[in-house]
């Protein structure tokens, strides 16, 4: 065996570990949930008979019912994506541009923005829950200082979803900023110099150099953040009273519904069917995003 062959064998040997991880920790449970979604799955029962697409029929019937929590969960999940992802990307890009242009305290700023991302989402949610409290919460105290009326935030049907979104955006901001910074620093300085020599304005430079060259980063982040919003769970279960996605299902998400149906009501089949539906929704959205956002670039 040549040295090269041996090296390759070793490389594969090491790759087996992550491969095994993906097969047993990721793929196997996914396939298992596909199987569960086709059964009347009472966890305590010995026999868990196949019921065809009955669970899916129920899921789609519930999606068709405008007052059903499952329908609300899908509506809310899409709202989270549509509100959260653009705001997060724009804010992160703006802050990354600012951080990219300063030289003093740059590291400190980066650390400050990144800290929320490495903090436990549960801890973050409970702190925000206190900040949002009506009457005596910090945010309402601040509003009071400016003579503004106090708000109910998480307890109000119309404010609850934006309030939850704000927490998620705030927490994920640091990660997006770091990725944008890496993308910005990968753009060769010579491009900017050439543009400035040609007399391009700052806006022209941003529009015609920065944004196009950042495209792979933007696509990457858009896909990643969209998936994160589609799978939202931790923040909602910790921010809402008794984790029920209230008031009146105004903050509930698909994954929270999966959890409630599966582990609260022991409707494992229904919960698994919901998971499978979400799986295909995520796949579809991701493929569409990759197709339309991705643009080939030649230097």
């Amino acid at each position, binding site marked *: 065996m040549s040295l090269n062959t041996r090296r390759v064998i070793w490389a594969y040997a090491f790759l087996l570990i992550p*491969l095994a991880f993906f097969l047993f920790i990721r793929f196997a449970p996914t396939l298992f949930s596909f199987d569960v979604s086709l059964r009347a799955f009472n*966890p*305590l*029962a010995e026999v868990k008979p196949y019921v065809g697409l009955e669970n899916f029929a129920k899921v789609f019937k519930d999606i068709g019912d405008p007052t059903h929590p499952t329908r609300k969960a899908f509506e809310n999940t899409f709202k989270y994506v549509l509100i959260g992802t653009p705001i997060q990307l724009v804010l992160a890009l703006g802050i990354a541009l600012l951080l990219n242009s300063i030289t003093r305290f740059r590291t400190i700023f980066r650390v400050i923005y990144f800290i929320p991302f490495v903090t436990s989402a549960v801890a973050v949610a409970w702190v925000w829950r206190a900040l949002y409290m009506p009457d005596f919460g910090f945010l309402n105290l601040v509003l009071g200082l400016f003579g503004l009326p106090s708000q109910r935030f998480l307890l109000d049907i119309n404010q609850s979803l934006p309030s939850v979104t704000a927490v998620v955006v705030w927490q994920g901001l640091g990660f997006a900023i770091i990725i944008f910074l890496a993308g910005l620093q990968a753009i060769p300085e010579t491009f900017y110099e050439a543009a400035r020599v040609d007399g391009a304005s700052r806006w022209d430079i941003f529009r015609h150099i920065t944004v196009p060259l950042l495209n792979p980063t933007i696509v990457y982040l858009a896909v990643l953040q969209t998936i994160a919003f589609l799978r939202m769970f931790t923040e909602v279960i910790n921010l809402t009273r008794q984790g029920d996605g209230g008031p*009146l299902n105004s903050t509930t998400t698909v994954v929270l519904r999966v959890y409630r149906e599966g*582990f609260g009501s022991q409707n494992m089949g229904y919960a698994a069917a919901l998971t499978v539906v979400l799986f295909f929704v995520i796949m579809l959205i991701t493929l569409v995003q990759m197709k339309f956002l991705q643009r080939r670039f030649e230097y």
Partner: protein
Amino acid sequence: MKFRKIGLMALASLFVASACGGAPAAPTAAPAAKATDAPKPAATAAPAAGDVVTIEYWQYNFQARIDAMNELIKQFEAQNPGIKVVHNSEIPYDNFLDKIAASAPAGVGPDVATMFNGWVPSWVNAGYLVPLPEKDFPPADIEKNFTSMVQGTKFQGKYWALPTAVRSLALFWNKDMFKAAGLDPEKPPATLDEFVDYAKKLTKTEGGKITQEGFAVEMNGQAHQWFREILTRQFGQIPFSADNKTLNYGSATACNAWKWLTKFETDYKTGSNDLFDGATTAFTNGKLALHIDGSFRLGALAKAKDLNFGVATLPTKDGINANFGSFWTHGITKKGAADPKRLEAAVKFLKFITSPAAGTLWVKTTGELPAQLTAAADPTLQSDPKLGAFAKAMGYSYATFFVDETKQRKNLIDAFDAVRLQNAEPCAALADAVKKDQALYDEFWAKNK
């Protein structure tokens, strides 16, 4: 070519890896095997003592109950040297059902298990429990000796489980606030009318904001039980049909009770569960005067040293008393019934832990009330300033036949939120919630004919 070879090797080693991956499954099964193997060495070591039967008992992790059960097991084993009880109480509440579910197909797990009373139908439905043998637990004796709540777990005409102790609801009131409002601190409201009157008098506002609550409806706490099982009866509506198939708590009569309850927030404005992080927290921190809660709250309130509170029986209406009970109840599993010797041991154990004496021991450790009426009627318990109010309700307490407690609670929470947040018409909101509940029952009974 070379690559294909390597690929094959990789695949082969993957199988080896997966075989190794499968191996750790063995140790997890081992403890259970150990439990059933245990009698063998004992039998050879002391043949005179006969076979020692080992049974496994499971409950979820709650320290006071673990202490009480450990004491009961010690006494039981002393009386029955031929039986050893393995007590598994390591499972947190949130994982309890999952662990039971994971153990069942593996043929391991408990011989006697403790479940919430509302779970009995679904456990029976899954074929997990066996009916209590009628010769050991005659239904007539159960109905004579145990609190009326136990009848709520009768399913398919049989008893499947029995409790050691039960919980009921009572009125908690803050004596200091009564004094400050010029009310007699030793005289809590006795009727629903007085209750409304007191709640108004005990509410304080400052600049439009409530600073002290008279009463706040905690729908996610005990208020939904109070409404569903108690207020409905007091307003003249039996909430369930005798066969538990038809729900009547959405009727016009029941809605009078519902309106009575919603008015605290919509009309009288005596408080809200949105304030002070919930009514229970508000009461614990001396921000709320009247509170409806269970005996299980006493432990937490005992830690609030500055709180000067009393506990009384729930207010009545037109002389009608009613109360809601819930409890953890013990059943024998299919695994426990599979072997006649283990079944015999399980029956003995179940009889022991549901005896009046066990209930008396239990109340001292956990604050839950003995399920056997003779033990609940004990004069020292009845006159206890805190527990007495709960004990007095044993004779007129009802345990709800829940099909899905979480969803049924949520439906009433949503109905209440619709009234207070969206100005929905109370009776329409209630009817909508009960319609959703009824759909759950229809689905349940379609599966359990």
